[in-house]
């Protein structure tokens, strides 16, 4: 009984927490209560992780309750190894973000915690949905809390950033909605078919769509995901939203929201429309590489720490997209683990930048210098997160990038190692901009009197960062703990794609 509804418990625990918050007045109780519910959710996802059986094929923990009969819509949940990792990441980062914002949010504390918990509901729902209608609802519903988080608690240009974020995402997702409807309609035109948005059914139906229309479907879905990832040149909302959002907002944006785009590519774009995916594969790979290089170069010239971290996301997500479209077991495994890695390291970097901002009220790199002496703890954690992001062997980023590049190098789908070779340069650029930034902020002498008085991390902040660092090192040293969970799902996906490729070639002959 517990296990059959575990996913529902996970998704709706934060909602219960959010509703309970409305009844409480005291700010300390509000904060504790929301942390409590985020913690319960996290514990539930750990239980989920431990009970998940990687050996079993297909979706697990499936729940199916018919919802809207006339359109055949169901409350249909289920996870595989890929969504499992992202669910745990989501609940972990939400908890971290809430604890980290204990003292940084001073106005409308209740609303803030309310929206963060609501956001968690949406994020978890997206990763669990096996019905396109349900998926779309979570996907869109999540926009609203994020919009408020950026718009109310953000920095100077928050309104602009919030509206831009909202409208950008909406353009993509509404076109996806038309594609979803069209898929349902297509299913109803087949002999004996009914209107359906059931993903499991559509997996066998959608690839049979004539290529001309399938291409449009693929584009509609992929546009929506590409905006979310974001893939160059659709990334322009990202620096604004990340920079203007409050600390917790940036952490969840970078940590989880961006992953929804790459998750969508893996869950929908590739397996639903394999043939069209092959058609656009070179383009997507090139855009991914452009993102890697472009993101790195733009990061290099940033004066604002938060903007630098934001642009570095464009580069990192470029790797993930490259891995996805290389369609080998290694590269997609690398992409999956890199999604988690990026959530951890970039999340940690946003936290650190946020903490620094709280203490010094500036984010300009030129305002700092020599902080290693003043704030040794902060400098250490910053170093670990930064090196994880660079891809230093022994830390998490290396594992992901290595797998992606190996996979891309030998990928039959890409057909040439050229993509991997060019992408490798991105690793070097990442080292350049991150190390250079670190040097300017933390090394040399303290030449500004304001910096002398910066307080080092307190116990709460250290605990939050240490929790992240545990995973940064764990994935770096022993990634198999996590990779083994997602491997069967990735293998199945690659098998599907290979079969589709063979089928497509067969049809040509």
């Amino acid at each position: 009984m517990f296990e059959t509804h575990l996913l529902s418990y996970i998704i709706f625990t934060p909602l219960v927490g959010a509703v309970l918050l409305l009844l409480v007045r005291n700010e300390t109780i509000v904060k504790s209560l929301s942390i409590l519910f985020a913690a319960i959710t996290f514990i539930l996802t750990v239980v989920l992780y431990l009970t998940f059986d990687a050996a079993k094929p297909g979706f697990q923990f499936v729940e199916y309750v018919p919802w809207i009969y006339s359109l055949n819509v169901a409350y249909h949940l289920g996870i595989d190894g890929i969504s499992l990792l992202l669910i745990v990441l989501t609940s972990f980062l939400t908890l971290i973000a809430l604890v980290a914002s204990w003292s940084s949010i001073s106005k409308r504390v209740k609303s803030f915690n309310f929206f963060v918990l609501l956001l968690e509901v949406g994020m978890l729902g997206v990763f669990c949905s096996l019905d396109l209608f349900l998926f779309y609802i979570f996907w869109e519903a999540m926009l609203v809390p994020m919009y408020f988080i950026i718009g109310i608690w953000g920095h100077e240009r928050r309104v602009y950033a919030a509206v831009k974020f909202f409208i950008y995402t909406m353009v993509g997702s509404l076109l996806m909605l038309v594609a979803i409807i069209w898929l349902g309609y297509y299913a109803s035109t087949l002999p004996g078919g009914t209107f359906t948005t059931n993903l499991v059914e559509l997996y066998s139906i959608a690839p049979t769509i004539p290529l001309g229309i399938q291409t449009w479907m693929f584009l509609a879905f992929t546009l929506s995901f590409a905006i979310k990832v974001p893939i160059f040149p659709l990334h322009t909302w990202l620096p604004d939203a990340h920079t203007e959002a409050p600390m917790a907002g940036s952490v969840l944006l970078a940590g989880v929201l961006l992953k929804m785009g790459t998750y969508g590519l893996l869950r929908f774009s590739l397996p639903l429309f394999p043939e069209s995916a092959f058609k656009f594969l070179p383009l997507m790979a090139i855009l991914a590489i452009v993102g890697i290089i472009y993101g790195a170069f733009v990061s290099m010239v940033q004066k604002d720490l938060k903007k630098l971290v934001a642009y570095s996301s464009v580069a990192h997500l470029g790797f993930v997209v490259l891995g996805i479209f290389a369609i080998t077991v290694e590269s997609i495994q690398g992409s999956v683990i890199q999604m988690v890695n990026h959530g951890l390291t970039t999340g940690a970097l946003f936290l650190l930048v946020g903490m620094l901002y709280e203490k010094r009220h500036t984010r300009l790199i030129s305002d700092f210098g020599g902080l290693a002496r003043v704030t040794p703890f902060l400098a250490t954690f910053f170093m670990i997160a930064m090196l994880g992001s660079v891809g230093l062997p022994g830390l998490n980023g290396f594992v992901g990038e290595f797998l992606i590049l190996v996979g891309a190098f030998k990928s039959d789908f890409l057909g040439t190692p050229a993509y991997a070779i060019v992408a490798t340069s991105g690793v070097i650029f990442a080292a350049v901009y991150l190390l250079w930034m670190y040097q300017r902020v933390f090394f040399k002498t303290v030449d500004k009197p304001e910096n002398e008085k910066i307080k080092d991390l307190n116990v709460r902040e250290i605990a939050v960062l240490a929790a992240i660092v545990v995973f940064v090192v764990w994935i770096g040293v022993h990634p198999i703990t996590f990779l083994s969970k997602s491997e069967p799902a990735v293998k199945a996906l690659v098998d599907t794609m290979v079969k589709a490729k063979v089928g497509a070639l067969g049809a040509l002959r």
Partner: protein
Amino acid sequence: MSFNYNDMIAVSPILFLSAYSLLLLIVDASLKRPANICYWLTLVGLVVSGFLTVFTYNASGNAFNGMVFTGRFPAFFEIVFVLSAALSVLLSKPYLEKERINFGEYYTLLLFATLGMMIMASARDLMVLFLGLELMSISLYVLAGFVRRDAKSNEASLKYFLLGAFATGFLLYGIALVYGASGTTNLSVILERFSVTQNDPLLWIGAALILVGLSFKISAVPFHMWVPDVYEGSPTTISGFMSTGSKAAAFAALVLVFSYSVHPSWQLQLVIAYLAAFTMVIGNLIALVQTNIKRMLAYSSIAHAGYALVGIAAANSLGRTGVLYYMLAYTFMQIGAFGVVSVLENKEGKYLQISDYEGLANKHPVIAALMALFMFSLAGLPPLAGFFGKYYLFASAVSAQMTWLAVVGVLASVVSVYFYLNVVVSMYFKELPEGSTSVAISKLGATALIIAAAAVIELGLTPGYVVALTERLF
């Protein structure tokens, strides 16, 4: 001609409301201070006729020698009208007291307008349709000008009347031509003779003129010019009532004429599709630049007529369900939005500009949250009622091979997000201006808003029940 008992039962909500309204007219005339009594009596009347509707729900068929439809279709719309009227009435009392126009005839006129809408939705004959339309329109002309001393209200009334009379002329001319082509004004007979008359240009000219007349009432582009001025000038509660009730009534008529009777397997379907596309795009684009919230809601109501027209253009059962569902969902969210304005605004015109809403969330958190909910629902965000309505309407377009129309619709929705968010931005992201005072929120008004908000959420979460009510209509 003979009357029988079953016919009476089948149209009992209409019969009851006719008698009741006339009675109310006498009560109003014979009392010294009738406003409060009329208010409660009106609510009672609406509840009773809504209750009667439930009994007629499964008596699908026709009555009075085929002059009116009975059963599901009219009953569904009657519920929409009753809800629209009841919510407006609930919001009206505090509003009218604030504006010092609390007179009994307001409520009587509102009941007569509701009655007209009910007659429209059960019309099986074009003459009955016309009768209902006139009863509704004339009552609304008066209500639009109810703030007697206000120049804008007078302008609204006059404009609505002149343009409305003109549109009615088109409608009547269209009815005459259709009669000329098919020899009848009965919609079912027109349907029967369709195979014979469908090549007669008179039928199509007539149908086009009827479309023009009804497009005026639903405020489709390019027949929308009156809407912003009328909605701005009318008492806010009446703007809410007009933009939901009378729009729903005109959509009922559109479904009856163009989705049921005159079979649109012909270019007319494409004409309606273009009408829908223009209405969605232009309504949303012009709404972008509005600074007055009533005008913004007026243009948004134009755009929403466009969305619902998609269902008429699709002319399939999904489309009909979509229109019906959307009218119900739209009634709640639109009356909710106008209701928030009516609750807040005062005689000096405060809270009529969107900029007046700055920092509202600090001052009136509950009202701001309700307004945000209505805005998100109007923008079509899941899991609210507005989203599911759009989903159904766009699904009908896709299954009628008009995917382009669905694409136009979603792109127009993206535009709409901007101006709906603008209100939310003002309420939540802007600071409270210095020296602003809070408004006394009436309990009745707040009750109506909370009912509407609950319905917006509920309809979005469990749309299946309403959808089930809209199947097997005729």
